[in-house]
């Protein structure tokens, strides 16, 4: 029995390895998304702005210093007024912040202004800049309204009076040093597993019907059960074989010198390496590593089962590719890939609880980023349930479909 299962699995592996187009079909969308994360990360948070300081006094300098100090919000370019105007026209900067000539005198009268000339091309970008400049202007009168004040002011028992009469005592929920990049890589891992699992199994199953090899399966003396189990094992091995090097690479990218934040490398070099560097996974403890393997296996089995069902239902390679790619994209986005589920309308939030990828993404983040495994049990339980259900259903339906082929 085991030899028959293994024989079928080996055959599927061999067929798959001789199908570069199918391998590309499974890998490219996920890798494309990975590249997207790298590009997205380099553009998140900071906006290029021109700073024009026309005031010459002490207070103008202080205002300019506050703006320059907010490196999290702006990429500041000091410019003369004419150059700044040109830069806005050529889209080299998104806004011009002007500390006007009469700033010092106006402060004395309580009517000083920091002028913001804003390219309000879309509301997300415009609001980011509005918030940042408002905060910088407020810091002049109320230093504790700056980021340091929010984090280390009233929340640490240090409250300075300010003219706005309200201060912020910020308490962060988590002790974490996870970057935006690392945070976003997790859904990509899940997307790659889904794509490979769905498409590899779906295409192999559909191919059997398209090429008539399903009839040979029926006539085989090996019997249905070993062949069905062999198919599921083979596709699981295909997924593992393609995902393992990618995950291993994720653990090794930290050794690429250009990936360090303070590497001092040229921006072009950083950009070239942003793809591989984006693929940086934290090395977990052995308990977390075991949890991680269990979770990845459960996701793989779930998608292999779903892929088999897809192949049985559609029986056409091109359609399987289209449905698989569409399905993987929906599972990815509804599960929390690139979206934060909390922001979505209530009905989508409710729907996402029925999407297995949401548990996979949550579980992977928990296993890789946090010292405890809070909620992991539930994630693994749900995914194991999905894996069992989809594999069982796939086995029964595949055996039936072959016998009717």
């Amino acid at each position, binding site marked *: 029995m085991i030899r028959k299962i293994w024989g079928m699995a080996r055959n599927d592996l061999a067929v798959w390895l001789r199908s570069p187009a199918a391998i590309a079909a499974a890998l490219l969308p996920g890798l494309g998304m990975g590249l997207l994360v790298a590009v997205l990360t*380099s*553009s998140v948070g900071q906006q290029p702005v021109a700073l024009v300081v026309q005031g010459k006094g002490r207070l103008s300098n202080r205002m300019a210093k506050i703006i320059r100090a907010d490196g999290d919000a702006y990429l500041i370019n000091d410019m003369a007024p004419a150059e700044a105007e040109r830069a806005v026209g050529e889209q080299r900067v998104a806004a011009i912040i002007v500390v006007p000539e009469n700033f010092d005198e106006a402060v004395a009268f309580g009517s000083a202004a920091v002028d913001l000339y804003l390219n309000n091309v879309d509301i997300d970008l415009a609001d980011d800049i509005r918030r940042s400049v408002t905060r910088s202007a407020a810091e002049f009168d109320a230093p504790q309204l700056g980021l340091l004040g929010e984090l280390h002011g009233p929340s640490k028992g240090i409250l300075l009076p300010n003219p706005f009469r309200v201060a912020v005592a910020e308490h962060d929920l988590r002790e974490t040093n996870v970057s935006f990049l690392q945070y976003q890589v997790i859904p990509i891992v899940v997307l790659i597993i889904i794509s490979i699992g769905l498409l590899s199994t779906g295409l192999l199953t559909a191919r059997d019907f398209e090429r008539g090899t399903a009839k040979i399966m029926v006539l085989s003396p090996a019997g249905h059960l070993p062949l069905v189990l062999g198919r599921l094992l083979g596709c699981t091995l295909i997924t593992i074989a393609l995902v393992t090097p990618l995950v291993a690479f994720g653990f090794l990218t930290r050794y690429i010198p250009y990936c360090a934040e303070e590497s001092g490398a040229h921006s072009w070099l950083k950009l070239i390496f942003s793809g591989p560097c984006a693929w940086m996974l934290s090395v977990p403890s052995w308990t977390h590593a075991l949890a991680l393997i269990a979770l990845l296996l459960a996701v793989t089995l779930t998608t292999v089962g779903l892929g088999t069902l897809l192949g049985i239902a559609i029986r056409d390679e091109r359609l399987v590719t289209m449905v698989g790619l569409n399905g993987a994209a929906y599972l990815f986005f509804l599960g929390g890939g690139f979206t934060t589920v909390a922001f979505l309308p209530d009905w989508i939030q409710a729907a996402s609880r029925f999407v297995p990828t949401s548990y996979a993404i949550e579980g992977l983040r928990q296993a890789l980023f946090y010292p405890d495994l809070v909620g992991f049990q539930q994630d693994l339980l749900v995914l194991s349930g999905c894996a069992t259900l989809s594999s069982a259903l796939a086995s029964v339906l595949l055996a039936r479909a072959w016998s009717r082929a």
Partner: protein
Amino acid sequence: MIWARVLLASAALELAHLRRNRSFVALTALAAVSFLVMVSLFGLTGSYAPVALINRDGGPYAQRLIEALAGAHHSFALKYMSADQAVIALRSGRLVGIITIPAGFSADIERGATVPIDVQIDNINVDLTSDVQRALPAAIVAFGRRHNFPGLRVQMVEHDVLPNDTGYIPYLVVSALGLDAMVIAGILGALATAREFERRTVKLLRLSPASASAVLAGKLTIAGTLATGALAITVLAIMLIYGVVPVSSWATLFTLCACAAIFTCFGAWLGAMLKRTLAAVPLLFGLVMPLYIDSGALEPTRFDGEPIWRIAHLSPIYYAVGALEWAYHGIRVTPEPVYVDLLVLAAIAVASVALTLGRLSKGGVR
């Protein structure tokens, strides 16, 4: 005359092929709508962070602060709930933060004291955390300004370059049209040429005395027309479901037709290069998202830095988004003029057709 007849015959044949592949065509159109939906989902995360508000004061100043929070540059979607419910929601990822206005807030403000408001943030994602951290001072400033508290010396005065802000989702869905054009038209174009290699009919094309350009033109006309139809459905969805109407209908129509034609040619070249639909479709899916993001889809690309902007010039979607945002919203998202964007797209189409003809006449056959 003969050229035109060959074109018509080729178009009729392509239409017959596509009729037999209705499911594939329907799934391609579905992919376009899917991208639109997904981009919208992403857009929803750009503003209105769900934050619980616990008002332990209930006084007039607390009410004003709440109004200021609600009006702070589309930053917060305030949710009213008990403290216990809020903590549960925060820990389960359904909230980004909890803002607590303490008891006695109004009285303390009235007597001129500075009151700290407690803010708990789920800082799992640095982008969301930064948005909240920046929005809180903006709300506090609005609160202080509204009451003309003494001691306020500096304020931000805004001068917008454009008369109106374009909403994030309206901006994103229009740029998604560029993405859709590449996916739909690209796949249909690729299907038209890859099929010739898959079925080995490319040999017949080479032996035929008919002009290859006429045959290709016929195929691409049908693929492009179908792609335009699918794009029209997407535009209708944008207008009816999202309520986003183009500022110039004719410019939008022209740009969409141009995008459909150009990406059909591009797809045809890809199909002729790869010779397999199964390879071309995932390649397009894989390419399209990174190309889309690096194309001014979320904001003008140049704001992402010079290297990214320069690389963006390699992406046809960069030029398509530039033309589409101009036609639909009347905004410029590329430093290059719109006619340059359209000219580059036309050049891509011409080059694609030339390369496709080359592949059809000389490339190896499986």
